[in-house]
């Protein structure tokens, strides 16, 4: 079984991102959407946590949410894949199940 996790909260706001990462099984995927896209930016206090988690999980961030918030795609942590809604759909169908960390 391989699960896709989605997170939609900024790590500065609550513990959803950190809880998701700590309860994610190895080789699972995490998709950052809505305010959670803040998590994948370089030079924040969460950058190191995300970078070190990339060893264990596939990470994706939703491009329209990055763009809407004026976050430069160039400043996204390397290794995090930038995807659109079409790929969001593919991710949900390619994984066995989806958990949304609300």
């Amino acid at each position, binding site marked *: 079984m391989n699960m896709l996790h989605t997170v939609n909260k900024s790590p500065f706001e609550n513990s959803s991102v950190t809880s998701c990462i700590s309860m994610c099984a190895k080789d699972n995927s995490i998709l950052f959407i809505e305010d959670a896209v803040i998590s994948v930016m370089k030079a924040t206090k969460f950058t190191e946590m995300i970078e070190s988690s990339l060893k264990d999980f596939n990470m994706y961030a939703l491009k329209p949410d990055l763009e809407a918030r004026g976050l430069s795609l160039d400043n996204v942590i390397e290794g995090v894949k930038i995807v659109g809604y079409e790929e969001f759909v593919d991710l949900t*169908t390619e994984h066995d199940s989806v958990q949304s960390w*609300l």
Partner: protein
Amino acid sequence: MKLGILINEGPYQHQASDTALQYVKAAIEKGHEIYRVFFYNDGVNNATRLATPPQDDRNITKEWSALAKNHGIDLVVCVAAAQRRGILDKGEAERNGKDSDNIEEGFRISGLGQLVEAGIQSDRLITFGD
């Protein structure tokens, strides 16, 4: 694939319903079947036809309604959650002695069993919420 969608937040306050709309449109475009969209928690507020957003803003309720009409998507609003928040169809309004109903075309009110059934029948269940 058959996809079930759960929406737990109302329109405008949270991006949840907007993201769900974009996701559902992309899924339809890719040829997937949307088995059902179930509205729960404050998500039931997506179903009121009385909402009147400013003209230069999107009308989320109308967008869902249009998707239901054009693609035959089953939009189901949880009856218990809807009663708490004043979302009523004609039958519910009459049963509860209310002077009007407010549900938008394309939405229907039913029980939580419809959510569980969507979980059972769909290949994936995807939740959008707060």
